[in-house]
């Protein structure tokens, strides 16, 4: 089969090549000047047609794809992004159509003819000044809008923000909630143990004792309450991508990064808005991190009310209790291997979900 395809392709090439060679000879016979003039006319028409078809194509492409874009921003702050994008699109769109139209129109309009002579016009400083200052002013406006939004995005999170930690690793997200005491306990990468301490929680720090760890990358938030994400990585650079909320931030080993936003549309509401019962907010890894980069999928559940979120929290067992608490009667299969890494006294190894 491959051989047949190769042969067909080779045959196609040979045919095209021969036609091209023949056309060169035919051109020589007919007289080079005449051929050049005719070719020139054809190319001029093709360029003009390209532009016209191109604009039509842009229209068609937009029609085909506009329905597959993101729904409205699921964060309060993301609305600013959408507005800013629209303004930038308007400005660049005007420039795009104007310049492309001129390019292709001039190419067609000033094609070489028997009688035309070019107009010797080497420079015009007034024009240069004009089209230097106008773009500069437009840029300044775009910068002003952009920086206003940038400072808002990078501002300090409000004090009532829910704090959640997301740590990336090859190839899934680990999410930690601060629990009832509202504080995340200390982590130490040297304490990490994939069997019973995936985040390296320092068990000496009491704040860790009520922290809830979720290894399936499920981020639980509530509509209307700002959330501050503390982001980090265990191994290589990852990135917490939240396209519906219009945010992302790199997860870098050795430092923590942070973003905050206020979810404004709950998962249930978004399911209705998009008419898609399978809808779910997803976390995508947005920095190349190895062979599983494309499979680092997390989810975001935005609850309608705080009560719902609280109920979910209540149903979780703190990581410390599961891995280091007093021995509980074994419900499911427990690994026979003894725990390692923490150096403390015995702890049963129970497989996490």
């Amino acid at each position: 089969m491959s051989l047949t395809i190769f042969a067909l392709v080779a045959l196609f090439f040979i045919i095209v090549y021969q036609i091209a060679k023949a056309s060169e000879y035919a051109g020589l016979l007919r007289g080079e000047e005449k051929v050049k003039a005719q070719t020139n006319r054809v190319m001029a028409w093709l360029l003009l047609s390209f532009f016209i078809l191109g604009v039509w194509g842009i229209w068609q492409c937009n029609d085909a794809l506009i329905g597959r874009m993101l729904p409205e921003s699921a964060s309060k702050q993301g609305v600013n992004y959408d507005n800013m994008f629209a303004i930038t699109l308007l400005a660049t769109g005007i420039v795009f159509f104007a310049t492309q139209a001129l390019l292709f129109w001039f190419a067609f309009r000033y094609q070489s003819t028997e009688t035309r002579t070019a107009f010797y016009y080497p420079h015009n400083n007034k024009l240069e000044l004009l089209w230097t200052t106008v773009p500069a002013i437009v840029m300044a406006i775009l910068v002003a809008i952009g920086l206003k939004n940038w400072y808002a995005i990078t501002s300090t999170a409000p004090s009532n923000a829910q704090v959640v930690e997301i740590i990336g690793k090859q190839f899934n997200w680990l999410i930690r909630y601060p629990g009832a005491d509202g504080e995340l306990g200390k982590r130490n990468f040297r304490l990490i143990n994939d069997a019973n301490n995936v985040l390296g929680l320092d068990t000496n720090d009491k704040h860790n004792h009520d922290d809830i760890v979720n290894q399936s990358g499920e981020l639980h938030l509530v509509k209307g309450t700002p959330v501050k994400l503390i982001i980090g990585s265990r191994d290589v650079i990852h990135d917490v991508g939240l396209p519906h909320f219009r945010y992302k931030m790199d997860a870098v080993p050795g430092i923590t990064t942070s973003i905050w936003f206020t979810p404004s549309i709950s998962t249930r509401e978004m399911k209705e808005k998009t008419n898609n019962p399978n809808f779910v907010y997803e976390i995508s890894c947005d920095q190349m991190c190895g062979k599983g980069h494309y499979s680092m999928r997390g989810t975001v559940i935005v609850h309608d009310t705080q009560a719902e979120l609280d109920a979910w929290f209540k149903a979780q067992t703190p990581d410390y209790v599961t891995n280091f608490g007093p021995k509980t009667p074994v419900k499911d299969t427990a690994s026979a291997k003894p725990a390692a890494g923490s150096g403390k006294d015995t702890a049963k190894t129970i497989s996490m979900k």
Partner: protein
Amino acid sequence: MSHGHMAHADHHVHPNDLDHHGAHDGHDHHEPHFIFKYIFSQDHKYIAKQFLVTGIIWAIIGALFSVFFRLQLGWPDKTFPILETFLGDWAKGGKLSPEFYYALVTMHGTILVFFVLTAGLSGTFANLLIPLQVGARDMASPFMNMLSYWFFFAASIFMFVSLFVQTGPAAGGWTTYPPLSALKEASLGSGVGMDLWIVGMALFVVSSLLGGLNYVSTVLNMRTKGMSMTRLPLTVWALFFTATLGILSFPVLFSGFVLLIFDRSFGTSFYLSEIFINGHALPHVGGSAILYQHLFWFLGHPEVYIIMLPGMGMASEILSTNSRKPIFGYFAMIISLIGITVLAFLVWAHHMFVTGMSPFLGSIFVLLTLLIAVPSAVKVFNWLTTIWRGNIRFTVGMLFAIGFVSLFISGGLTGLFLGNSALDIQLHDTYFVVAHFHIVMGVSAFFGMFAGIYHWYPKFYGRFMNNTLGYIHFWITFVGAYLIFWPMHYEGIAGMPRRYYDYSAWESFKQFVSLNEFISIVVIIVFFAQLLFVVNFFTSIWKGRKMTNQNPWGGTTLEWTTPIRGIHGNWPGEIPTVYRWAYDYKDDGNGGDFVAQNIPLREGEEGH
């Protein structure tokens, strides 16, 4: 090219004065040995061809890789026996393994950005055009020039070999960020393949520096009588600034690589801190992965202008020649080149807006990045005004030059979205970025390269490329490129991440399955159109229509005053003296529509 009798020109610096091993001693006129004439040639015209042909070979490989990974992207649930034919175990059962998908993506970027669009573009045209257009017998140091090609060749060997090692070539993206690229445990591609990649790149940097220093010296020191800097063609100005960009930024990249080698093999922690991988906590503490990004992008951003500028210079030349009109705003074009060159060094961190950098620092980079749009806009307006009221002749080179402008407009404008950090937060690492840089680099810069190849082919080989094939090549590539990359913007706006092997499991991105298939189909067609170009290029060397006129395009610049068959030393007699700027496309009083640079002023004519 025969040595010929070198007349006693005003030639001051003998090309071989700087040689230690004077392989070719210009004072005795016997034929140099085959090895020194055709392999270790020190003739700039020959070296240009070496760069060009090597670049074309790499381009086929890099493009072929994109066809392979687009098969995966277009048809994620199908298998292709042809993949297994080419790639063996890396595509068992006809499906690319994820590791090798990432290796292909990585090498595609590395090969095309560095080996094709830098060496194959700057190396080729700086070598061909600088000595000819400034009026010099050869480069300032033909020996260093020869070395610059052979270091490039050595770099190519290492890169090529890395494709075949057992653990595979580098696979962390062409940007090779640590810790992924520093830790063998993090990825198969971070094993031997990464070591070879770094060595290859280090040799590449040496090659670039050897070339760049030569180009700058030649432009500054070896211009012929009357060729003041302000009479230089814009091609030379563009290549001059390209070389400057490279000389000042490649060494920083080199330092980034040195530190990476140390982290990989000598236990240092420049980029590494607090890492737990493969069941172990690593001992490294205190380093910063972001440091690498600064060192990389300090080159990385000037690099994209190194890629763009030669095309800009050549497009200026080709648009002007084929419109029979001067380039509009010659001085404004030079100033905008200066603006772009200076600003290119000041915007690198716009690639790092989401690394957690200080917001204040981010805002500085936003300002500088959007500033660089201004000189770029000026250039576009000047090109438009150049063809306005011209007398346009659509040679294949001219079509590619027009396409270059169209694509630069399209790709450049999306840069305004990405350079504004508040928008970049959403668009970073999505297909919006992929669309942007492909349109500017992958297509626009390539169109500059094609325009140059078709336009100056007679100077390379004394023949013309086949026009029919050329026109077919142009139209398929121009239409195809827009079909491929325009819709990608939509994918990016929808948040679809780049560098993903498969989108089927993602609720948010799986709606683009049919679009990805469409794009892959167009990619395959456009790839074959490039093969058409390659066939045209090579067959025309021996079978192309011969040049009968020394100046087929009616150009004003000095390369068209040399004999049809290039000779060592370029001009058989004295080097021409220059009396005017490079754009006197005007009535010559004799029925012609241009006056070449080496024609003296007529009575009463004002100089320029």
